[in-house]
């Protein structure tokens, strides 16, 4: 408080100059800020643009020294290589993309089916030690994957789930359920419980009230939550690489990482595969941009 008074007094005598000085300073500052933002945006986006550029460059230009930024020949060969094997037929990469779709899709559906009712129950009913239960649920999501994968590996080896899609689906579901519950609880909290009470006065059971009145209102939230779960499973690497090995089970992240295993690396192919892999994620993320804050904090922060 005192400081603000001092400031007001000290700027008093030069009051005539301040507006113009401030306006000029404001403009200079405006230019500076915009310039700074532009530079930062370029730095942040350059790797993405470079990846896209590399994916459409001919191999000769990919390894050019100094690097070619604009004058290169455009080719779609790398994208063809992603989907078509060199001898014709489907490539192993395209199979892995398909596996990713199946694993991410099924695990997301399962996490939604398990998580949404649980979130509703946590939101509506007085559950014993609710807070502790919710905290426990979220903390399972924070376990280091590389630690969890050791006992999971042994467990799967016992029951024959190593190198199966079911095994991956189960572990991804278990990692997405905590997120779904936390994210959905926020959405359920926003729907007034009075709707259900009113429906129950009309003779519906609690379950019917949930199914007929609350659930339809939750659909946009469910969609957003499912999209995030989809992105998490789609991008996941640690479990995928340790729990699967054969080409017809492996998902895309370990398959793409496998491209750099050999002595020579076809970076054009790596770039094209990465673009194909990342594109759906970016599209989906754009669709749920309103819920990004809640989504990336696992439903813990919502504003």
């Amino acid at each position, binding site marked *: 408080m005192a400081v603000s008074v001092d400031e*007001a007094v000290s700027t008093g005598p030069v009051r005539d100059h301040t507006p113009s000085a401030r306006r000029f300073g404001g403009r200079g500052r405006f230019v500076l800020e915009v310039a700074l933002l532009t530079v930062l945006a370029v730095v942040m986006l350059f790797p993405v643009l470079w990846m896209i550029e590399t994916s459409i460059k001919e191999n000769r230009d990919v390894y050019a020294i100094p690097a070619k930024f604009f004058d290169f020949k455009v080719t779609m060969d790398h994208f063809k290589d992603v989907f078509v094997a060199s001898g014709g037929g489907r490539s192993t990469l395209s199979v892995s993309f398909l596996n990713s779709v199946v694993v991410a899709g099924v695990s997301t559906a399962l996490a939604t089916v398990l998580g949404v009712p649980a979130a509703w129950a946590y939101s509506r009913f007085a559950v014993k030690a609710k807070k502790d239960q919710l905290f426990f649920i979220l903390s399972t999501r924070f*376990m*280091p994957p590389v630690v969890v994968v050791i*006992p999971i590996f042994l467990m799967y080896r016992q029951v024959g789930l190593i190198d199966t899609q079911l095994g991956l689906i189960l572990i991804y579901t278990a990692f997405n359920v905590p997120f779904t519950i936390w994210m959905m609880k926020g959405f359920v909290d926003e729907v007034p419980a009075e709707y259900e009470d009113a429906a129950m006065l009309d003779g519906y*059971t609690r379950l019917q009230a949930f199914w007929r009145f609350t659930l339809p209102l939750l659909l946009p939230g469910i969609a957003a939550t499912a999209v995030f779960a989809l992105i998490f499973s789609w991008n*996941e690497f640690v479990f995928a690489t340790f729990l699967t090995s054969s080409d017809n089970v492996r998902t895309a992240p370990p398959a793409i990482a496998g491209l750099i295993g050999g002595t020579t690396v076809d970076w054009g192919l*790596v770039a094209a595969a990465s673009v194909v892999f990342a594109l759906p994620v970016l599209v989906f993320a754009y669709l749920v*941009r309103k819920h990004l804050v809640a989504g990336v904090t696992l439903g813990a922060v919502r504003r």
Partner: protein
Amino acid sequence: MSDPAPLTTDHPGQAASATPPAPGRSRRLSDRGLAVAFISPALLLLLAMSVFPLLWALYLSFTDYSATRGGPAHFIWFENYTAILTSAQVHLRALTTLIYVFGAVTLQTVLGFAIAYLISRRTHGRGLLTTLFLVPMMLSPVVVGLFWRFMLDAQFGVINSMLGSLGLGQVEWLTRQRTALISLIVVDTWQWTPFIMLIALAGLTAVPKYLYEAASIDRASEWFRFRTITLPLVWPLLLIAVLFRAIEAFRLFDLVYILTSGGPGVSTETLSFHVYKVAFLGFNTGTASAYGILMVLIVIVLTQLYLRYLNKLKED
């Protein structure tokens, strides 16, 4: 506890019956039944896929079990733990992890907050800018790791190419001990600065306008306004983001695996990468389990801190 529930749900007519006491009673009972029926499948899955494996790891951590050698596991009690806690190798990895977590999270916080502050002062194109800045965060660590590996390549990497055209020398980013760890920090910062930015932006846009107006009537300086209005109001949310990032950085495995594989030497081996090596290359499952349990303990402490703080923030 759950046995009364099936009884009531088996009587669909009860809810519709006109006698007032009965529906009330059945409703309360069926509510409890519903809660159990809706929550327990999710909890059972978590118990089977998260808690049980950890308990198994806890058991293995007291044995000399090896996944490849097979044979029965012998109890050796705390030998694995003492071996890990006194190992100079582990101390080195702990230091590497600390440098990495601290360096990356600090850089991200400063940069992310700066970008958020700059964006919050724009009136036009805010949505577009935010969307553009968020792209790195949504990419898989695999894609990020591979791509930076390509860009940082000492021979044909575009970073060295740009340095060259500026007349600067070539840097062996990923093959020198010191620069490899810096590269790891830079790449992680590139990917996760948007995360801090997103949360800081949420905090900044929530600061009520009238506070700034009042301050400008008082002719408070820009720095004064920032220090007394902006920072105190955004700080709680920012701290949540920082803690979250610290936990994530501590768990990080995939980026290290793709970008440097812990090398050169062991210069970028973090604790999670070391656990992987002990478990899957050394096949000392017992030791690796003990190592993992110790890491889980650290994560639990950090998570508790995070959740406590989050709870406090929500109650305010």
